[in-house]
């Protein structure tokens, strides 16, 4: 194991270039400036996307393509490439690519950032921009037979979507034989015990080894972006985030929306509410990671194992705390723009002592998991050196969260792009540099301990908070109407990674464009890298170690 850290943010501070320097670097490529609230934006010609992105990546160090947003205006289409640096995510830049209204064609950024593949497919699918030089421009969320692009302005919602049966590709064809090869095509999913939801993996096997694997997603697409666009900022959007990563990570998701909308509307959240948010969010993280551990044990052990039940048991205890706090077990709807909906439950002492009981018991339980799972030799045999995801590949795919940290990349928005109360508290970012299934699990298990540390500090803070300073919500206008044509992209560290929200306001009380950057979506894209050449059981383990939630992948 090399002692040299893969990334050392402290070693040399990444020089931040001013927008003007960047503009000079890009030179003639920049047609105009279109700054967003979070980052400078450069408008470029649609046929210079690769050139611009590679200059920004190679020469300016913007190595993280966080999100590709596509949208249609009255007079043009537009793709936005939201770039960041893994070493310092507060350094952001947006590349704005307008495309012709009648023939929206734009060059693909896939050659520079592998992650652009799926993001551009989604943009094509939902908005209708075509990407030149894209390796595989097909619909990704909707069926291949779908007529029209639902998020484009002239989309007719009442148009019947009738497709004749022969137009559908039948995934269960009679024969997959061909004379040349002796491989076998296997459908894993959409109904399969290990896909953690409705995911369809089109797998080509050579014996038991995977030659090719392709994820077919979209079974759980619920038009979350479109629904958010037809809701008002103040109240109607907040319930939706709970339904993205619904594995009890609700508060973390709500925070993503809250952060973007609060920055857009310039709302200052009271400190007391920030502490409550931080505590609640970390409880959600524990619950989510416990479920990840439980289901990973299912994937590797098979059937109902002790690990699964123990982890579910622990998750249940956090869940009870969250229920006390928010009044809900799954769809919390607890955050409000400018704070949280209500204060801690009364009597406060009871809530604190319950929380402390949980925190006291947790280290012992984690020890038990280590005895049962991570120190088991068969388990190590199964997970160490399987599902390898090298750090450079992970970055190229825009992987974030425990998946990226399991590949040794020290990247956590809670520390690197601080929000809430995190920068006031004492905790560590966990990384493991094994790059395998085992590392990803270890990262999650240690993050549970870090979360517990954070919760403990929050409880101490809340307990001593003066009674007359317990402001849970800022003064927020009844109807929020952010200024016309403001654009913002903000992300938080959710359970699975970087959960970002892009909002464009148009002066009304509803967003003109609401785009979700789902960490699972980007993480799932790495599956072929980990799976090809491995055995089926390792693919299942790798999928489990990615810890995807289809509700968030498909939105």
């Amino acid at each position: 194991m090399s002692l040299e850290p893969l990334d050392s943010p402290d070693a040399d501070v990444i020089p931040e270039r001013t927008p003007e320097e960047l503009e000079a670097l890009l030179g003639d490529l920049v047609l105009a400036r279109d700054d967003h609230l979070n980052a400078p934006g450069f408008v470029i010609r649609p046929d210079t996307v690769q050139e611009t992105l590679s200059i920004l990546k190679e020469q300016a160090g913007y190595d993280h393509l966080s999100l590709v947003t596509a949208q249609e205006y009255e007079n043009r289409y537009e793709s936005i490439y939201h770039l960041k640096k893994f070493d310092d995510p507060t350094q952001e830049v947006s590349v704005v690519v307008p495309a012709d209204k009648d023939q929206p064609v734009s060059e693909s950024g896939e050659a520079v950032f592998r992650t652009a593949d799926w993001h551009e497919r989604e943009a094509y699918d939902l908005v209708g921009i075509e990407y030149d030089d894209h390796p595989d421009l097909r619909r990704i969320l909707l069926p291949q037979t779908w007529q029209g692009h639902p998020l484009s302005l002239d989309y007719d919602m009442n148009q019947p979507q009738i497709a004749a049966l022969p137009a559908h590709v039948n995934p269960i064809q009679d024969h997959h034989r061909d004379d040349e090869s002796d491989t076998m095509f296997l459908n894993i999913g959409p109904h399969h015990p290990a896909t953690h939801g409705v995911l369809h993996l089109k797998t080509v096997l050579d014996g038991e080894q995977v030659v090719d694997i392709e994820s077919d997603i979209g079974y759980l697409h619920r038009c979350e972006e479109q629904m958010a666009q037809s809701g008002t900022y103040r109240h109607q959007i907040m319930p939706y985030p709970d339904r993205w990563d619904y594995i009890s990570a609700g508060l973390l998701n709500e925070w993503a929306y809250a952060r973007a909308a609060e920055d857009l509307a310039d709302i200052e959240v009271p400190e007391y509410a920030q502490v409550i948010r931080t505590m609640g969010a970390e409880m959600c993280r524990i619950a989510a990671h416990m479920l990840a551990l439980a289901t990973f044990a299912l994937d590797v052990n098979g059937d109902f194992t002790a690990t699964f039940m123990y982890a579910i048991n622990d998750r249940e205890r956090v869940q009870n705390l969250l229920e006390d706090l928010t009044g809900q077990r799954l769809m919390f709807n607890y955050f409000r723009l400018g704070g949280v909906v209500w204060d801690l439950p009364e009597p406060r002492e009871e809530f604190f002592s319950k929380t402390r009981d949980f925190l006291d018991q947790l280290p012992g339980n984690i020890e038990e998991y280590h005895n049962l799972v991570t120190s088991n030799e068969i388990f190590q045999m199964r997970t160490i050196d399987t599902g390898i995801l090298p750090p450079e590949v992970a970055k190229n795919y825009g992987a974030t969260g425990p998946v990226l940290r399991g590949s040794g990349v020290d990247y956590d928005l809670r520390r690197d792009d601080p929000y809430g109360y995190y920068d006031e508290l004492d905790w560590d970012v966990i990384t493991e540099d094994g790059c395998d299934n085992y590392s990803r699990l270890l990262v999650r298990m240690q993050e549970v301990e870090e979360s517990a540390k954070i919760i403990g500090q929050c409880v101490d803070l809340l307990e001593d908070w003066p009674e007359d300073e317990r402001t849970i919500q800022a003064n927020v206008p009844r109807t929020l109407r952010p200024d016309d044509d403001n654009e913002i992209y903000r992300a938080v560290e959710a359970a699975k990674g970087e959960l970002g929200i892009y909002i464009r306001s148009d002066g009304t009380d509803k967003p003109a464009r609401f785009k979700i950057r789902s960490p699972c979506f980007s993480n799932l894209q790495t599956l072929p890298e980990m799976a090809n050449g491995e055995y089926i059981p390792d693919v299942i383990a790798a999928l489990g170690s990615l810890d995807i939630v289809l509700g968030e992948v498909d939105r």
Partner: protein
Amino acid sequence: MADAPAQLFPEFIVDTFGLPGVLGEVVAALIAAFVVGNIVLAFTGVAGPWAKRKITAAFTDRIAVSRIGPFGLLIIPAAAVQLLAKELIVPEGVDRPTWDLAPIILPASALLGFAVIPMGQLGPVNLHLADPEVGLALVFAFASIASVSLVMAGYGSNNKYSMLGGLRAVAQNLAYEIPLIVTAMSVVIFAGTLEMSGIVAAQSETLFSVGGFDIPAWYALVNPFAFVLFLTANMAEIGRNPFDIPEAPTEIVAGYQTEYSSSYFVLFYLGEFVHIFLGGAILAVTFLGGAAGPGPESISFLWFVVKIWGFFLFTQWCRSALPRVRIDQLIEIGWKGMLVLSFANLVLTAVIVGGIA
């Protein structure tokens, strides 16, 4: 068992009821087989719908079936009715005779194995159907027919997951049956016979005495190394965790039994459970002194029950606690590890036994 070996069960029936001639022997044999078969099936009936749930629940901090009857015991008839009442779905394109025969062959092969198992005495009855000279070889032969059934199910189901499961079953059985039998051969060297009653009798001698208690010369105590080898290979042979690769739920759905429903599914499940008990029975006979135990000879059947249920409990413990190995790792352990160790054990045993003799 210093006295003359007890009368076999069919002979006992002939004598007791005075059945005459060859016909009488046939009738007696059928009655005896019926009784023994039902004892084994009763184990399975208790194990499948009830004990397995209760045991797993105990391992995982749950309660499991508790509503119907005392301790939820009436779930057994309820589950039987429910399972038999389900629709038998026959997928398109299955290879009919193969697909239908597979679920019959599996339980049949496992049940056949019990024909030569000495299950101990219950009162005057010695629950032992037959005691051929090649008893041990025969029981392994019967038990291995199970793989044929798995291949048939995998091939006949017209399903890729089933096919993968069937192929895995063959690979696994090849890799583990050889070490299993070679290890059993070391017992044969000790006992000097393949006869089941002979192997049991050889273990009834006293190994040494501690404070007046005679510790019997069970081969698990005489050669613990062989015992562990045999136990491991046995787990693979009966396809339980960590070697439940042919089924591998969460990987290949349910392996060879993916396409089976209703009564066919019951037959498969039944076959698997009988197979676990047969595995326990072979283990008990070869390494744990058969039905021997403290107390009078006439209750030795109870000790036998304790031993095979102990083995069942062990399989369930592994199921709750152990991860599954990967198919290539399993094959590697089998051919490169177990096979070598089992031959080493065989040679060592031969040398030691030969040296003493």
